[in-house]
């Protein structure tokens, strides 16, 4: 049940609870209790909305920054990650296998703002050895959604 609920709200957190209950052969109260429990357990960590800012005309610049660090004794990478993810500009931080340690995703209003963050906040951190900033030129798909596409039903309206 949990998995089925999650698979629906992962793609549409605004789904009507009553509809969801009917689809899963359950009732509204059960689904609501399950959702509340999962929120309390932090299985559900939030309900953000996927926005195509390009269409709003709001300038946004995002960058994926590869960061190499020295892990701290006894704390591994977690302590370093915490120093980074606490900045509100930082959108996501992943520990990565391969040629560098963290992938940090950040968002700013301008190129300058992002560059300033890297040079004045991120790079000077003690454990940070190097950074490489990759600016995002175009976002094609995010969270499983193709940004540019609007799905049109091209089927014949009635068929046997």
């Amino acid at each position, binding site marked *: 049940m949990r998995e089925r609920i999650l698979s629906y709200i992962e793609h549409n957190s605004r789904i009507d609870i009553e509809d969801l209950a009917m*689809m899963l052969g359950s009732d509204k109260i059960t689904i609501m209790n399950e959702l509340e429990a999962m929120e309390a357990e932090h299985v559900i960590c939030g309900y953000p909305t996927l926005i195509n800012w390009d269409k709003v005309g709001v300038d946004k610049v995002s960058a994926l920054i590869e960061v190499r660090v020295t892990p701290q004794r006894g704390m591994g990478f977690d302590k370093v990650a915490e120093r980074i993810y606490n900045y509100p500009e930082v959108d996501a931080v992943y520990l990565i296998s391969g040629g560098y340690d963290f992938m940090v995703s950040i968002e700013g209003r301008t190129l300058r703002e992002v560059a300033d963050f890297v040079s004045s906040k991120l790079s000077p951190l003690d454990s940070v050895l190097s950074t490489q900033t990759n600016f995002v030129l175009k976002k094609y798909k995010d969270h499983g959604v193709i940004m540019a596409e609007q799905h049109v*039903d091209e089927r014949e*309206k009635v068929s046997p």
Partner: protein
Amino acid sequence: MRNPLNQKISDIKPSGIRKFFDIVAEMPEAISLGVGEPDFDTPWKVRDEAIYSLERGRTFYTSNSGLKELRVAIADYLKRRYDLSYNPMSEMLMTVGGSEGIDAALRAMLDPGDEVLIPQPCYVSYEPCTILAGGVPVPINLKEENEFRLKPEELESAITDKTKVLIMPFPNNPTGAVMEEEDLKPIVDLVIKHDIFVLTDEIYSELSYTGKPHISIASFPGMKERTIYINGFSKSHAMTGWRLGYACGPEKIIAQMTKIHQFAIMCAPTTSQYAAVVAIRECDEDVKNMREEYNDRRRYLLERFKKMNIKCFEPYGAFYIFPSIAEFGMSSEEFCTRLLREKEVAVVPGTAFGDSGEGNVRISYAYSIENLKKAMDRIEEFVNELREKN
């Protein structure tokens, strides 16, 4: 000028669904729940394989029977999913959709006057294909009280000494009915006793929601040698436009079907066949996900109709539900036409699938839940208005 036309084809009425389609075509804003094809896109890896095959220049005919690699993969799949054993070299033919297989099988088996038993309501092609093959269609009117399953007494009373073929259209379009093991057993006994052949159209076999695996009539002892098994990629893998299906059966019948196919068609589309190798080998997970989503929508619609107090048996297959509209005292066609004109929702009258569909309408759930919800809200309004007036 002489009449250029063949009498048999001229006498066949156009599909009842066609008439309804023409009305819907005038109303572009209408929400439709009228389609008989999946709303999902063909899985990308299948489409990608098709593109790759074109890049490689695989644009020639395949053998008449179809790509060997594909037939071998299908034989594996049939064994794995339905415990059916067919020799891919001699007992299988790749066809242009399941439809071609139905047509070729009837043409290969029927002599003039042979009777074909057709449980109705059912898909629209069995009757005309029977007539065109020189056979005589004999409808068996299935009943709602039996959840539109075929009962042995219904079968037995339709059998004559001219009966040659029984068509088994399950899971069923338009009713969504299925035949489970205990339903099939007595049918199998009768078929063997009366020495009848079976044409089983299992195009919806992947869409069964009984919680048990779909069971094929061809898998019963003594049945393989008297059954033509039809399946394809349209419904299971959301590949309607690719036009690819297959027929399996005794070598003797498949050989004659291959002859018809050879002269009429040559071979199934080559690009589709290459893509289908990936579909049959690598897409079990995609098929399962689609089935789960269909099942959720099925439950949703059943619950909505239950709340509206509309009689609707629980269908366990395909992607249709078949609620009863008999309480409103109008024909299925009138109900559908008014629903379309007054609320702009298109559903298909049960009578488009045979006389025994009177009193019911076919609702397809090959639509997103948002779409279904919008349509169901309007149907609810319509039903409430009808009840207020009565």
